[in-house]
């Protein structure tokens, strides 16, 4: 017997005898090793938060892992970020096409499904590799605030709150314990900040946290300034006591 994959991880389009697509699983592993990204629904909008670790001399004012897709839709990514850019470009074009065809803003689910379809294609064609990135697609549309997760296999699932990237298992447990459906967007932002602290080595400061909101009343994606994140951080540290090893 050859080592584990026995050559079945060479071509993405070939199932192993026990029914697995190794390349797709490896892509999902890439996501698992990425830095954390969190998305939370609240009663007055959605929150996206990510951890970014810039080098000391890196200009830190441009967010690398949260992307605007349309006025009302944002994407947070974990995994191999350049792949996310390609998917986001695609989503932007798709959103505007949808607007031209139907004369209304595209729905979050429609974008999520489109991107997931794209991922699925890249598990079935020879000569391509799967995307090494998972996306949290969120926004406010005709159905209210909405959150979807896509992964390299082409799965897309709606969530109330979700975390991807390294430490996401722990954060998911934390979210399952602390998430409440009737949270305000401020509470959700504090919870998101706490989630980042939980997964990160940095247990204080907000230089490594980026955040965006899409509020229900404005239906616009807005970047949250450092000052405001600091407020959420102080609430988070007080409320959730995440500096202890197993909160």
């Amino acid at each position, binding site marked *: 017997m050859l080592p584990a994959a026995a050559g079945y991880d060479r071509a993405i389009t070939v199932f192993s005898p026990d029914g697995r697509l190794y390349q797709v699983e490896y892509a999902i592993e890439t996501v698992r090793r990425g830095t954390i990204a969190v998305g939370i629904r609240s009663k007055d909008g959605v929150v996206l938060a990510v951890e970014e670790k810039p080098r000391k001399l890196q200009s830190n004012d441009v967010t690398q892992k949260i992307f605007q897709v349309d006025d009302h839709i944002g994407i947070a990514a974990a995994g191999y970020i350049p792949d996310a850019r390609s998917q986001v470009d695609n989503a932007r074009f798709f959103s505007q096409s949808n607007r031209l*065809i*139907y*004369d*209304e803003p595209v*729905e979050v689910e*429609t974008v999520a499904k489109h991107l997931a379809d794209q991922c699925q294609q890249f598990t079935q064609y020879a000569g391509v590799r799967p995307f090494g990135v998972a996306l949290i697609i969120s926004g406010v549309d*005709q*159905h209210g605030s909405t959150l979807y997760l896509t992964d390299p296999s082409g799965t897309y699932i709606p969530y109330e709150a979700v975390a991807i990237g390294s430490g996401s298992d722990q954060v998911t447990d934390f979210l399952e314990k602390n998430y409440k459906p009737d949270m305000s967007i401020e509470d959700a932002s504090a919870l998101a900040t706490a989630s980042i602290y939980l997964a990160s080595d940095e247990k204080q400061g907000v230089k490594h946290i980026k955040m965006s909101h899409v509020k229900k009343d404005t239906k616009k994606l807005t970047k949250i300034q450092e000052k405001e994140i600091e407020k959420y951080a102080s609430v988070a540290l007080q409320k959730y006591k995440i500096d202890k090893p197993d909160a």
Partner: protein
Amino acid sequence: MAYFEYMPGATAVGLTFNGGVVIASERRIAYGNFLVSKSTKKTFSITDYVGAACAGLVADMQILTLQMIALAKIRKLNIKREIPPNSLAKMMSSLMYERRYFPLLTQVIVGGVVGKPEIYTLDPLGSVLPDDYAAVGTGAEMALGVMDNDFKEGMEEKEAVNLALKAIRSAIMRDTASGDGVDVMVIDKKGSREFTEKS
């Protein structure tokens, strides 16, 4: 062009009222002096909450509405909610503009209620014009004259139906291409109802 032998006249109107829309059309099809049909329906239900009324080539309006009904069903399955009238009008406009150089020879009024009552007029090339009331076809001038005079914002359903009937009947009186009764479709947030009146 031989086409125009098969270009029957028609009158179709649409207007909004407090909580809904009325769409109406007369029932005559005539090829020149020959009256082909006295019972042709030129109002179409596209979804439960959006309807259309057409004037022009009968084949073209039927193909257009059948395609729209099919597209609307798929769209509704995809978005899991009712399709608003502006969106349906835009989809119809795309179908028509696609054929810019070989157009579907029909004018359409799209009207419906998803949220608020809305009326749109489309020409054969696919322009989309929003209106409170509109008329298309060979009798449009007469019908518009009546509605320009009598249309008020926020009418009751009964008033609106009567105005639609009056507009079409006025057109029928002076337009030989229009006649033989009036099909009326009323759409509000409860759905659509249809009935036929004498001219």
